[in-house]
C-alpha cells in the first residue's frame, strides 16, 4: 500500500529507511543524467580503478548520451601524447567556443553603427567593469586562434595525416582556416577607429579587383554596402562577423570533427606500415579511455591556455584603439592585419588582380586539393622530400611576403614627411611619435633647433646666437616668398612676434633626446634634405594643453622615383629656380599634448 494515493519516493523511504532511499535516489538520478554512469561508476573512474560491472559503464554515455556521443570512447595510446597532435586541434575547438562566449559578452555593450560604435568602445573601456579585460581576451584570442589553426594545419602536413582516407577532413579544415581568418578580419572593423577602417578598407579593396570589372565592382558594393565603408558596411561586416561566418564555421566544425571521429586520429607515421591505416583498430592494451584520461588532459590544456591568455591581457597586451574612424583621412603607414601581410607583400610585386586575387586563390585551392594531388601512400618523412621541399618553400615565401607586407617595406616616402611623422604621430600600430611620451613638464614652451647639436655642446650658445641672427627675427626666406615667421602665422596659425631660439633646457632630458634624434635623422638624410635643419616649437595654447610643432626646411634636390640623383662626386644636385637660386622648402606638422594624456611607448617599441 502506497503512502500517497500513487507510488512515490515516500514508499522507498518507508521500505528502506530515509538514508538509503536518498542515496539510491541520487544514484538513479546520476545514472540518468550521465546516461549510464552511477555514483559508484564515477567514483571508480575518478579513482583510476577498472570498472566493477559489465558492460563497461564508462562507454555507456558515448552510446546513449548526446554530449559524449560526439566524442570517441577511447583513443589509441600513441595519439594521446604531446606528439603527434600537440593538442592543436582541441585548442582550435576551444578557441571557437572561447571567442563565441567573449564575443557574446561584448555584444551586450555594442551597437554596429558609425555614430555610436566608437563611443561604445570608449564605454566598454571606461565604464564597464572588466570591459577592457573581455575585449582584450576576445582580440588576443582571435589572433591566437588564427595562429593555432595554422599550426594545426602545419602539424597535419608534417605527420602526413591528410592522406587517404582523411582527404576531406583536410579539405574541411582549410575551409575552417579561411573562416577563422575572415572572422578575425571582419572583427577588425567593429571598433570603428582609424586602424579598423583603413586596415579593412585595404583588405576589402582586393574584392574590387575580382575580374571581370562588373563582378568586382558589384561584389565590392555588396560587401561594403556603398562605395566606401560607412554605416552599411559596418552593419554588413558585423552581421558577417556574428552570424554568417560563425554559422558556416560551426557547420564545418561539425563536418570536420565528424570526419575525425569516423577515421580516428592518425597514428604517428613510424608506427604503421606504409599504406596502412590502423587508427580504427586499437588493440585492447593500447586503448586510452575518454573518461577520465582524455577528459582530464583536455581540461588541463584548456586551463593552461586560458591562464596564459589571462596573464597576457592583464600585463602584456591591450587591444589597440586609435582615434575615431575618419573616412576622409588615411593615416600614414596603414597596413592590413598581420595574418594578411603576405597578401600585402605579394601586392607590392605588381598587378592587383594577379597578386591580390589570383595568387591567394591559387594558394588556397592548392591547399584544398593537396591531399588529392599528393596521393603517395607513404607518410614517412624520408619518402616525402618533394612535399617537404614544396612546403618549406611556401613557408619561406609566407615569411618573406609577410615581411614585404609591413608598412615600411618598399614604400619610399619623402624623408621630411617620414621624419616629421615619426616625431608627432599619435599611437599607431605599437608606434608613437617621439614627442608624445615626453613627460608633460619637460615640454618647456620655447623654440628649439637641431642646429645646437651640430656643434660641440659648449658652443651651443654662440651657434644659436648666430643662428638667430641668420633667421633675422623670422624673416628667413623660404618657399613661395614667405618668411619662416609668416609661414608659422599664416599656414600653421601660431602667432608670435619674433623668433628667438634657445638651448633645450638640459634638465628636460627626454626633450633633448627627441630634438637630438630629429637632428640625427636630418643628418642621416642630408643628401635629400640638403642644408636641412629642424625646429621644434612648443607653445601652450591652454592651461594643461601644449602644442608641439616640428618643422624641417631644406634645399630642394633633384629626385628620381623618390631617390636622390647624385652627380659624379656623389653629391646631390640642388634644384634651381628661374634666377638660378636654390629653392628652399619647408614642411611641418604639429601635435597637441594634454597633461592627462598619459602617452607611453608601447612595450618593445
Amino acid at each position: 500500500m502506497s503512502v500517497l494515493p500513487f507510488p512515490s519516493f515516500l514508499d522507498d523511504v518507508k521500505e528502506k529507511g530515509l538514508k538509503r532511499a536518498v542515496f539510491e535516489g541520487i544514484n538513479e538520478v546520476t545514472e540518468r543524467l550521465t546516461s549510464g554512469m552511477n555514483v559508484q561508476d564515477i567514483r571508480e573512474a575518478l579513482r583510476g580503478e577498472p570498472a566493477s560491472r559489465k558492460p563497461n559503464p564508462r562507454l555507456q554515455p558515448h552510446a546513449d548520451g548526446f554530449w559524449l556521443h560526439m566524442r570517441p570512447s577511447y583513443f589509441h595510446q600513441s595519439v594521446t601524447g604531446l606528439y603527434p597532435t600537440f593538442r592543436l586541434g582541441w585548442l582550435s575547438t576551444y578557441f571557437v567556443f572561447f571567442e563565441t562566449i567573449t564575443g557574446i559578452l561584448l555584444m551586450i555593450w555594442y551597437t554596429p553603427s558609425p555614430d555610436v560604435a566608437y563611443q561604445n568602445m570608449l564605454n566598454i573601456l571606461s565604464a564597464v567593469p572588466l570591459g577592457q579585460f573581455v575585449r582584450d581576451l576576445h582580440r588576443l584570442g582571435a589572433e591566437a586562434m588564427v595562429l593555432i589553426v595554422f599550426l594545426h594545419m602545419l602539424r597535419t602536413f608534417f605527420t602526413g595525416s591528410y592522406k587517404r582516407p582523411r582527404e576531406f577532413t583536410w579539405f574541411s579544415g582549410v575551409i575552417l582556416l579561411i573562416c577563422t581568418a575572415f572572422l578575425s578580419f571582419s572583427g577588425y572593423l567593429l571598433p570603428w577607429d582609424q586602424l579598423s577602417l583603413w586596415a579593412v578598407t585595404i583588405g576589402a579593396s582586393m574584392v574590387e579587383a575580382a575580374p571581370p570589372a562588373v563582378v568586382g565592382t558589384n561584389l565590392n558594393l555588396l560587401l561594403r554596402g556603398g562605395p566606401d565603408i560607412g554605416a552599411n558596411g559596418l552593419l554588413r561586416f558585423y552581421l558577417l562577423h556574428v552570424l554568417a561566418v560563425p554559422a558556416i564555421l560551426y557547420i564545418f566544425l561539425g563536418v570536420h570533427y565528424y570526419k575525425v571521429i569516423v577515421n580516428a586520429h592518425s597514428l604517428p607515421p613510424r608506427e604503421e606500415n606504409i599504406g596502412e591505416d590502423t587508427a580504427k583498430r586499437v588493440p585492447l592494451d593500447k586503448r586510452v579511455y575518454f573518461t577520465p584520461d582524455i577528459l582530464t588532459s583536455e581540461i588541463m590544456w584548456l586551463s593552461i591556455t586560458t591562464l596564459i591568455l589571462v596573464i597576457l591581457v592583464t600585463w602584456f597586451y591591450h587591444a589597440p584603439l586609435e582615434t575615431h574612424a575618419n573616412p576622409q583621412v588615411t593615416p600614414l603607414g596603414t597596413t592590413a592585419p598581420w595574418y594578411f601581410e603576405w597578401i600585402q607583400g605579394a601586392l607590392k610585386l605588381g598587378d592587383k588582380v594577379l597578386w591580390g586575387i589570383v595568387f591567394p586563390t591559387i594558394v588556397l585551392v592548392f591547399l584544398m586539393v593537396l591531399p588529392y594531388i599528393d596521393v603517395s601512400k607513404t607518410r614517412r618523412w624520408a619518402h616525402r622530400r618533394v612535399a617537404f621541399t614544396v612546403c618549406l618553400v611556401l613557408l619561406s615565401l609566407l615569411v618573406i611576403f609577410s615581411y614585404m607586407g609591413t608598412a615600411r617595406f618598399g614604400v619610399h616616402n619623402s624623408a621630411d614627411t617620414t621624419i616629421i611623422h615619426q616625431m608627432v604621430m599619435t599611437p599607431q600600430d605599437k608606434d608613437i611619435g617621439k614627442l608624445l611620451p615626453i613627460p608633460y613638464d619637460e615640454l618647456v614652451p620655447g623654440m628649439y633647433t637641431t642646429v645646437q647639436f651640430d656643434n660641440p655642446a659648449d658652443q651651443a650658445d654662440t651657434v644659436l646666437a648666430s643662428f638667430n641672427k641668420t633667421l633675422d627675427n623670422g624673416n628667413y626666406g623660404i618657399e613661395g616668398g614667405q618668411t619662416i615667421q609668416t609661414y608659422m602665422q599664416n599656414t600653421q596659425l601660431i602667432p608670435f612676434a619674433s623668433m628667438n631660439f634657445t638651448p633645450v633646457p638640459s634638465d628636460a632630458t627626454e626633450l633633448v633626446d627627441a630634438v637630438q634624434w630629429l637632428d640625427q635623422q636630418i643628418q642621416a638624410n642630408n643628401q635629400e634634405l640638403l642644408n636641412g635643419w629642424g625646429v621644434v616649437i612648443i607653445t601652450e595654447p591652454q592651461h594643461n594643453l601644449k602644442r608641439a610643432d616640428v618643422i624641417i626646411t631644406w634645399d630642394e634636390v633633384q629626385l628620381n622615383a623618390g631617390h636622390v640623383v647624385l652627380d659624379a662626386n656623389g653629391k646631390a644636385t640642388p634644384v634651381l629656380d628661374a634666377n638660378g637660386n636654390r629653392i628652399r622648402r619647408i614642411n611641418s606638422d604639429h601635435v597637441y599634448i594634454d597633461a592627462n594624456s598619459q602617452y607611453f611607448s608601447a612595450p618593445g617599441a
Partner: protein
Amino acid sequence: MTLQRLLINRIEQRILISTIAFLGILVVIGWLAINEGGRMAAFDSEFTARAIEDGATLFNTNCSPCHGVDGLGSARAPALNSPLLFGFDYLADIHKQQSALKTELGLPATTDARKTEINAQLADLQTQETQAEQQLQPAIAKGYDPDQFNRLANVGWGSTLYNYIYSTVTSGRPVSSSYWPQPMPNWSQIAGGPLRVDQVQDIVQFVLNWDKGSNWTVDDLLAVQQFPKVPVDPATVAQLQQQIQQLQQSGGQLPQYVGETTSIDDIMKGLQGVTGDAQRGQLLYTGQTTPVLPCSGCHTTGTGPAMQGTWTRVVNERLKDPKFAGWTGEEYIADSIIHPSDYVVPGFTDGIMPPNFGSQLTYQDLADLIAYLKTQDQPSS
C-alpha cells in the same frame, strides 16, 4: 620527453596543473577587479585629454579664423576664452553683500536706524563697485557689463554650458548682418555640416578646457578682443534714427560715409583733398580703433591675400591685368575695399570679405587705410 612525462602521463599531475591554472586565473581576475576602478578612472581622464587634443586641432583649422587662434574673438565672432562664457563674476563679493543688504532693507523688522546704516553701507559698496569697474573699464568699453557676467543667464539658456556650446557648434546660429558679418555655420553632420558628432564633442571639450574656474584674472578679461553682441531692438534703432534727424535739422554734422553703391569714380572724387594717415590706417586695419574693422582677421591668416606686400602685388601684378588698364593703385585698393566682389584674386573665395564697408567707412577712414596699405611695399611673391 621530460615534458611529456610531467604533463601527460599521470592523471594526478594533470589534475594538479589544471587546478593551479584555474586558481591562477582566479587570482589574476581578482587582482584585475581590485584595480578596475582606478583603471576606468584613468582611462576616462586619458580619453578626455585625447578629446581635447583632437578638439584643439579641429578648432585651429575650423574655428580660429573667426574666434581667433587663442579664442579671444575677432570682429567676426565673439571670444570663447572669456570669463563671460564661463560666468565668472569679478564683483562677486560686492554683489553678494549688496544683495544681502538689500534683502535686509526690505524686511519689515528692520529699524529705521538700521536702514540708514544699510544705506550708508550700500553707498560705500557702490563706491567700491565703481572703483572695481574702473579696473575693468577697457573691457566695459568693448561692451562688457560686470553685472551681466554670465552669458548663459544673459541669453536665458536653461541647460548646461556643455550643451550650450554643443548645440551652437552643431546647428550654428543665424545672425543679422547688422551685428555679425556672417552667421555661425552649422558644423555637425546631423545638421548638414561637415563635422562628425564626435568631432563636435571634441571641440566642445577643447572650448571647456579654457575654463579657469575661480582663477580668472582681470588681465584675462582685458585680453578679450570681442564680446558677444546682442541683437538690437528695432524700436531702439528707430529712436536713434529720430535723434539723427533732429541733429540734422538742428544743423549738427554727421560723419560722411562713402556708401556701398558709390561708383569708383565718385569715390575717387570724394577722396580728393583728404590726406591719409598711415598710422591711423594701421590702427584701423588691426581693429584697434573705431570703427573696429575685421581686416586682420583674414589678411594675416591666409583666408584672404596676405597684408604683407599688398602694395607690391597691386603695382606688379594686379595693375598689369588688362582688366585694370589705366587704373591707379589707390583706385584698385579703394574699389577692392568698397566693392569686394568686383574682382576676386585667383585662389581666394568670393563672399568672405563683407560688402558693407561702404556704410562703415568715412572718406577719411578710407584714405587712412589706403595710406597704410601703401606702406606694405615689401617684396612679395
